[in-house]
């Protein structure tokens, strides 16, 4: 797929030290740079020829994508196009059937330790928040650091309060998730993911279950996160966010990666017919 692209500011770049340790097919080399601010960044996510089947149904069809550290990628596509399946493969909530996935130099395979290592690098935010309803907001956030990272309780709580501060709801720490609005719940979910100090954050339609007046508060938090240099992959239908914050848009259809490019490319002259059709429906 990559060779079909209109190259945008391709900057040749030498492999980072960690990158060099990973065996990679020489032919593919480095991914392309979609924004000048990413010049010099290494590829932190590498997926090559990834297939995923649900029984007879092919949900992902030969998806190859390289994502730079600090890059903000927004994934677009019609319902059922495999967007969720793709990002769920990135932290192994789904197992891919063919191809390879390398996250920050760690090859995704059957090895449980590799999986644990990947999950501690990748945070995920779900459409339905999926907070733990029987735990307070604070415990929702401290659980991961305490149980996975073995952080002392006080330290974990200090971290959690810091993160709640960052997402703007420190006063809700002692409440239970059911006592919060949807927007507040989603911000807690973001804080919970950040508490594991991940390098990469995955967002699967983080605002789709929210009332319009709460969407902005969540998008603001995500934007702040983007500015802070987090690598983010966001499935969303919020075109404003895609246009303003994304370095790159990626369009999926029927399990395949159809087109990718800068927001400018997508909103001015998309190449593929399917992309045009989709964008005309959604804009």
């Amino acid at each position, binding site marked *: 797929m990559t060779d079909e692209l209109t190259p*945008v*500011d391709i900057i040749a770049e030498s492999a980072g030290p960690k990158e060099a340790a990973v065996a990679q097919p020489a032919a593919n080399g480095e991914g392309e740079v*979609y*924004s*000048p601010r990413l010049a010099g960044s290494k590829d932190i996510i590498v997926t090559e020829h990834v297939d995923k089947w649900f029984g007879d149904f092919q949900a992902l069809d030969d998806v190859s994508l390289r994502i730079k550290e600090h890059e903000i990628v927004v994934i677009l596509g019609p319902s059922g196009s495999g967007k969720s399946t793709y990002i769920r493969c990135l*932290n192994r*909530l789904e197992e891919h059937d063919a191809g390879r996935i390398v996250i920050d130099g760690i090859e995704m395979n059957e090895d449980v330790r590799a999986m*644990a290592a990947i*999950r*501690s690098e*990748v*945070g*995920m935010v*779900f459409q*339905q928040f*999926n*907070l*733990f*309803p*029987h*735990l*307070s907001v*604070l*415990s929702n956030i401290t*659980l*991961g650091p305490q*149980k*996975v990272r073995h952080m002392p*309780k006080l330290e974990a709580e200090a971290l959690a309060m810091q993160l709640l501060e960052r997402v*703007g709801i420190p*006063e809700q720490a*002692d409440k*239970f*998730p*059911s006592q919060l609005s949807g927007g507040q719940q989603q911000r807690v979910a973001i804080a*919970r*993911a950040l508490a*594991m100090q991940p390098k990469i954050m995955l967002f699967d339609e983080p605002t789709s279950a929210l009332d319009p007046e709460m969407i902005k*508060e969540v998008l*603001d*938090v995500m*934007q*702040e996160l*983007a*500015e802070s240099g987090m690598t983010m992959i966001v499935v969303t239908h919020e075109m404003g966010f895609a246009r*303003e*914050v994304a*370095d790159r848009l990626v369009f999926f259809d029927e399990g395949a990666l159809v087109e990718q490019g*800068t*927001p*400018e490319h997508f909103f001015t002259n998309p190449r593929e017919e399917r992309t045009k059709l989709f964008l005309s429906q959604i804009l």
Partner: protein
Amino acid sequence: MSELPPIPRPEQAPLPPPPGQRRIVLPPHRQRARRPWSVRAREWIRRNLFPSPGGTLLTLLSAGVMGIMLAGVIWFVFFDANWNVITANRWLLFAGSFPREEAWRLWTSIAVVMFLIGLAYGTWSSLGRRDTLFVVLTGAFVIFLMAHGGASIWSSIWFLVAIGLLYVGYYLTIWMPRETSTRRAWQQRIVGGLLALSLPIVLIVLMANGGATTRQFDGFVLNLILAPVGIVGGLVVAIPLALGRASTMRTIKWTCTAYIEIVRGAPLLGWLFVALFILTDVIGDNLIINTMVVLAVFTGAYMAEYIRGGLQALPSGQYEAAQAVGLTKLQSMQLIILPQALRISIPPIVGQAIAIWKDTTLVTIILTLRELKGNADSAIAQSEFIPDRIEAYVFVAVVFWVVAFMMSRVSQRLERAQGIGER
């Protein structure tokens, strides 16, 4: 490509005022509630009893029916019945062949349990006026029974001490500092641990150092021992069974399913026969131990199904979120899945507990173990008490009802105490 447009900084939403600074203004209907109680009472009566001609008619009708029934009950309890069958046989009904000189062991056990119940109430709930009324009524009744039969004054004092310990435990937990969630969590952990240990503690108090043997567990004491063993043992069996049946590993899944379906396929009566005829060869000829095993095995199969229901009721997002946070399978089971699944299954589990409580009477029929109902049978087999059959059975029924009712209240409290974390 040229530079992307600058990213606008997020606006900070103004923080709501910190809690505790809001002025509390009662809504109008709450303010009105401050009128004199006589006015409020009159209004309540009119609204609830005589709202309309039809409503008035229904009120009068049901009052009539209730009045007739109440009169019948009062007539029976205070004038018609001869309660001598109870007072004369109270030790037989209560503890049967439990050695009388070891009675202090029973009182100590009751005191320990009362104290723990007090701790539990203070930790997870609160003692209301109704609970106190209940304690006072039951206490008065037991003391009356003992006094009437001329029991030693010491047993009454022991019993009062036990009731007192209920309140000591309660106010102890209330009084202990627990402002922070850490302290609350620790308190819950300690009290929960003590509760879990209460059954072994009681058994030790009853049996250790020359105490009673299991064969001497008798009368109401036997019901009070068999049921908790069945319930606690059932839960211990049920949790791994439920997880096993939900497992993806075929052999484990099939084994657990087979266990559950086979055990549920036959009535408890049938399994008690197994305790009588088969377990005597396998475990030993102590029927009480065999019965305990059967009760735990039987209850476990039912409770496993209720817990599995709770597991299935959890949205898959909970499993996924636990994985995404990085918890291992064991950790997510222990910290995320089971606590929620168990909470969902509290009502049916308590239902099963009440069922097994009542079913402890079956051991009389099959195993000729003498629990409360069995000892009531022997009480009325004495020639002087033959005419007092009804009194004896009414007494037994009321005792069973009181305990079952307490269990159902505890279930409601548990649900309410846990309700705050609901989605």
